[in-house]
């Protein structure tokens, strides 16, 4: 594949210079690894988010009110309307349930109408159903009869009469259940504290392209009405109902609380114009729900996810760019070292293109090897990262299984292409420079006169990149979201990195008089060497500076957030104990709800003074997902004030919420969505938009898109949702058994309980882990930069071979030579750190005052992280010094006669 001449000239040289090749491969592989991990993480998050927003999404249109759900009765209404082009209307209900018999395994319960379509081979869910022989067929006869007659109402009734819910389960659940419980007993699933007996009648298997395939083995299918009654339960909760008793109770409940489903799926006739059908369906539904295309359905979640994705991509792009500069540096030296070879080749008739191709081929091979190593490394990095946040991701998304290791062919090929492109692109500049030299100059080994042009081109590129970046930042409001604010910042950074040789030149010029006046010979020589080749050292200093700048910025943003957020946590997490159904990570989401009877039970305990309940939901607002926090407002205000007499000055505002449609919004909500006190906001409810009046703002850091607070009682009425997610329990201080009573109750009910200190500690650790993730990615950049220091100093030793040889010849001791090279490493570390802090400080300001404000509406004061800066500087200079050791040892081993002859 590679022409013989390039194999002969390029690859053999690479093998001879294996140490430099290894550095290039390491740089590329680290860059590719961060890219791969970012892609996997993004894909993982995107699939999970998509799966959460629209599980089993195979319809052409969706009738939805988000988490609030839509009334089941709309199905019949839409069917009766015979909307042109709409072939079928399918109600769908879904949520997470736990399986107590199977170690509280979490599964997704999905309810759909029982129809021939679902069970047919060409069903839209692309699943195969294998009926179980042990299923009680005699109990199913009326149901099968109704389905074959096409009478779905009769089928639903027949289904209701069957004791125990008939379910389809995936093979892993079935096998687990069969092994632990056995087919003679029911499969019990639990939701909101209520246990429901089910009877598996079949095992489902999904095709690879099934919309249910992302759920993997965690699927339970059920008839929609039955599923709805489990997931939207009829009070009183807690008892295991079933059969005729439940039918009667359900009928009574349905009269006052119409049955809800998550969404209605509309399937269109082939060839139907989607927009026309959408408008026709909207005319039937009116304001009671939205009719959305799959793309629109995805949009709001994508808005949230894209922020995370951009974060990952920026880090991977950063590592790739730093890698690119370092590969450039290493190849620039290779070109310099091989200048005699280039002269020979040019004299033998090699064309300029062949010279460029020679270096590009070698770089390409190294790039491919680096990329091939980077791909598995990236998978590992993704696994480690996801491992760190497994619980949080599980609680964020519907699907409990987040599979981190899914490396697609596209990602693998993209990574290989990125590695190849980076290496070849980095090689192009030095190779083209070499090829542009006049052959006579090369043969004569004199310098060409075209350097001025390259210098000018370099300066123009730096100015253009920085100018473009600043322009994008200034015009960010006219550009697509984040392109200006984040894309612009990246361009400025790349421009500064590229300009590092010039900046280093300036810094060196500034310090030269001081160094000459006060430093010894060793340091002076190292300093002069640094300034003699700013092109070589500047790139590495720039890379080091980029790593330091990003770490400084992260530390600064972290420090600036830390105090206000910790202070806020200490004021809002004031109860003695917290009771919830799932785990600590899912406790502040709607994924593991409880019956509100838990609060009643807790209040009845003698040891308990107060109980404040919370229900979370995530409705859409202004094109994104916001947090709706429904709480016992009076209890919250009184309890918080009793525990924090001087904190939260606005907590009394909560007293105005009960019995009204008034809400409080977080300050970041008001800022981000431009909402003022007195405005009315609309959030989707089960029967269309619910209008809520904003009566105040409060400090809250729960959610980056903003939070809305309302009284839970009114919420339950407006949104038809009586469940709760968490109970804040205030225990009487003088009670002898105190917290133990609460723990005992929770244990009896299979609930979890934690105390205030543990919850605060958990939240602090969660924040630390988020910053750790950011640091981890930046450490990769730091490692790549350290590799750059090794390369730059190896090059320095090569370039100074004659000088070092002369030094040794005139009596310099090996120690002096070692110190001279190490001094250069220390100086590079010092300059890189100084440059990094100089860039990191405005970056911190920009992230806090522009990016964060626009992204989340959160406003924090800029705090300079002095302590962390000291640590980063020590690490940076230490790394540079350590990286200088190998080249320094190389320098000491210089053979004097050979060095003196070196050209």
């Amino acid at each position: 594949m590679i022409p013989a001449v390039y194999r002969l000239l390029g690859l053999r040289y690479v093998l001879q210079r294996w140490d430099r090749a290894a550095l290039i491969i390491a740089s590329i592989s680290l860059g590719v690894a961060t890219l791969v991990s970012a892609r996997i993480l993004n894909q993982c998050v995107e699939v999970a988010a998509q799966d959460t927003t629209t599980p089993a999404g195979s319809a052409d249109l969706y009738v939805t009110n988000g988490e609030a759900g839509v009334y089941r009765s709309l199905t019949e209404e839409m069917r009766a309307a015979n909307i042109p082009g709409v072939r079928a209307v399918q109600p769908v209900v879904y949520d997470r349930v736990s399986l107590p018999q199977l170690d509280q395994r979490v599964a997704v319960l999905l309810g759909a109408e029982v129809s021939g379509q679902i069970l047919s081979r060409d069903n839209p869910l692309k699943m195969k159903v294998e009926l179980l022989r042990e299923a009680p067929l005699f109990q199913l006869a009326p149901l099968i009869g109704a389905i074959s007659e096409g009478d779905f109402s009769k089928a639903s009734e027949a289904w209701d009469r069957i004791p125990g819910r008939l379910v389809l389960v995936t093979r892993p659940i079935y096998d687990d259940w069969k092994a632990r419980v056995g087919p003679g007993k029911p499969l019990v699933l639990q939701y909101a504290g209520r246990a429901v007996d089910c009877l598996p009648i079949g095992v489902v298997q999904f095709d690879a392209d099934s919309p249910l395939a992302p759920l993997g083995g965690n699927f339970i299918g059920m008839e929609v009405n039955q599923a709805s009654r489990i997931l939207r339960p009829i009070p009183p909760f807690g008892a295991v109902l079933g059969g005729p008793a439940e039918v009667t109770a359900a009928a009574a409940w349905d009269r006052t609380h119409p049955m809800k489903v998550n969404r209605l799926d509309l399937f269109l006739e082939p060839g139907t114009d989607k927009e026309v059908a959408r408008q026709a369906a909207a005319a039937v539904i009116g304001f009671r729900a939205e009719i959305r295309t799959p793309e629109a359905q995805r949009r709001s979640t994508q808005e949230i996810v894209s922020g995370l994705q951009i974060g990952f991509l920026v880090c991977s792009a950063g590592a790739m760019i730093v890698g690119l500069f370092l590969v450039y540096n290493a190849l620039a030296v290779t070109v310099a070292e091989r200048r005699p070879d280039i002269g020979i080749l040019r004299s033998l008739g090699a064309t300029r293109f062949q010279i460029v191709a020679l270096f590009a081929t070698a770089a390409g091979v190294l790039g491919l090897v680096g990329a091939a190593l980077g791909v598995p490394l990236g998978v590992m990095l993704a696994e480690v990262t996801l491992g760190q946040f497994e619980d949080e991701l599980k609680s964020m998304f519907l699907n409990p299984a987040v599979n981190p290791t899914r490396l697609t062919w596209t990602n693998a090929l993209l990574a290989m292409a990125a590695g190849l492109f980076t290496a070849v692109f980095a090689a192009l500049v030095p190779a083209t420079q070499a090829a542009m030299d006049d052959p006579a100059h090369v043969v004569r080994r004199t310098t060409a006169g075209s350097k001025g042009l390259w210098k000018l081109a370099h300066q123009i590129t730096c100015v253009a990149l920085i100018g473009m970046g600043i322009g994008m930042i200034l015009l960010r409001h006219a550009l697509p979201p984040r392109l200006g604010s984040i894309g612009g910042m990246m361009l400025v950074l790349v421009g500064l990195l590229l300009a590092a040789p010039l900046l280093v030149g300036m810094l060196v010029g500034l310090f030269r008089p001081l160094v000459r006046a006060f430093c010894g010979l060793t340091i002076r020589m190292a300093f002069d060497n640094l300034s003699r080749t700013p092109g070589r050292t500047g790139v590495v200093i720039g890379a080091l500076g980029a790593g330091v700048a990003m770490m400084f910025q992260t530390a600064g943003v972290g420090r600036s957030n830390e105090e206000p957020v910790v202070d806020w946590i200490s004021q809002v997490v004031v109860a003695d104990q917290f009771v919830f159904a799932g785990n600590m990570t899912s406790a502040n989401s709607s994924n593991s709800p409880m019956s509100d009877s838990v609060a009643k039970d807790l209040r009845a305990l003698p040891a308990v003074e107060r109980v404040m309940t919370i229900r979370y939901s995530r409705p859409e607002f202004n094109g994104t997902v916001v947090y709706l926090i429904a709480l016992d407002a009076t209890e919250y205000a009184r309890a918080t004030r009793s525990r924090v007499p001087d904190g939260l000055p606005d907590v009394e505002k909560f007293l105005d919420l009960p019995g009204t449609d008034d809400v409080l919004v977080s300050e970041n909500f008001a800022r981000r969505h431009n909402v003022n006190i007195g405005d009315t906001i609309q959030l989707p409810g089960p029967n269309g938009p619910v209008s809520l009046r904003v009566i105040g703002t409060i400090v809250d850091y729960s959610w980056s898109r903003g939070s809305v607070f309302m009284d839970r009682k009114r919420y339950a009425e407006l949104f038809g949702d009586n469940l709760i997610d968490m109970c804040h329990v205030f225990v009487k201080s003088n009670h002898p058994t105190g917290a133990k009573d609460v723990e005992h109750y929770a244990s009896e009910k299979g609930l979890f309980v934690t105390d205030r200190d543990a919850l605060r500690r958990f939240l602090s650790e969660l924040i630390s882990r988020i910053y750790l993730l950011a640091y981890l990615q930046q450490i990769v950049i730091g490692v790549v930069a350290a590799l750059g220091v090794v390369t730059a100093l190896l090059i320095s030793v090569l370039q100074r071979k004659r000088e070092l040889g002369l030094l040794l010849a005139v009596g310099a001791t090996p120690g002096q030579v070692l110190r001279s090279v190490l001094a250069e490493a220390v100086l590079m570390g010092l300059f890189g750190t100084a440059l990094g802090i100089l860039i990191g400080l405005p970056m911190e300001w920009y992230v806090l005052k522009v990016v964060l404000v626009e992204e989340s509406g959160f406003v924090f004061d800029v705090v300079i992280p002095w302590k962390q800066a000291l640590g980063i500087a020590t690490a940076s200079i230490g790394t540079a010094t350590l990286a200088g050791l190998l080249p320094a040892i190389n320098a000491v081993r210089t053979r004097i006669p050979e060095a003196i002859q070196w050209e």
Partner: protein
Amino acid sequence: MIELIDAVKSYTQGRRVVNAVRGVTLRVNTGEFVSIMGPSGSGKSTLMHLMGALDTPSGGRAVFHGQDMQMMTDRQRSLLRRERIGFVFQAFNLLPNLTAAENVALPLLLGGQPRRGSLHRATESLERVNMAHRADHFPDEMSGGEMQRVAVARALIAEPEAVLCDEPTGNLDTATSREILTLLAALPEVGKRAVIMVTHDPTAASYGTRLVKIRDGTVEADEPVYRN
């Protein structure tokens, strides 16, 4: 065959402008072995670079078989060097990581010829200089004389019309120098090939058929060499 017409070459070295060649007119025909002599810095190497299409004159013309080399593109000049001109340098200029045969085969490989065929022809070329037995050896395994023979084999592999030698014996002892010069002297053929050799050694120059003396970038003398 190769002609310089009032050729001038200036270049900058650091901040200094060097006028290496100042209006040289010279014609070399096939069958000739031209020795160019002059002291260090006289411009003899630059003159050779102009004749070998390694460089183009700042003024005047450099012509190869009637074609103005200044009018050629860089690629055309590269092809000219690859196919019609061979070079032998003082420092041998063999690539250290290639074997003798691979070094010799380079011009063919650069021309895109298959590796096996190129190496076969390289071995033939090495036989011409009695170096076939060292075909698989690397430069650092050979003596200076052997390396220069390999360089000559490389210069000859494309059957060029001009072989340009820049101080080919500068790094060799007397006996080896004699061998190399004898080898070079046998190369010129009327209608087929000329040899141009830059040297500052009168003994080496005496192997030529014509002697051009250069001083301060101009031709001081151009006379035939009569060998005893």
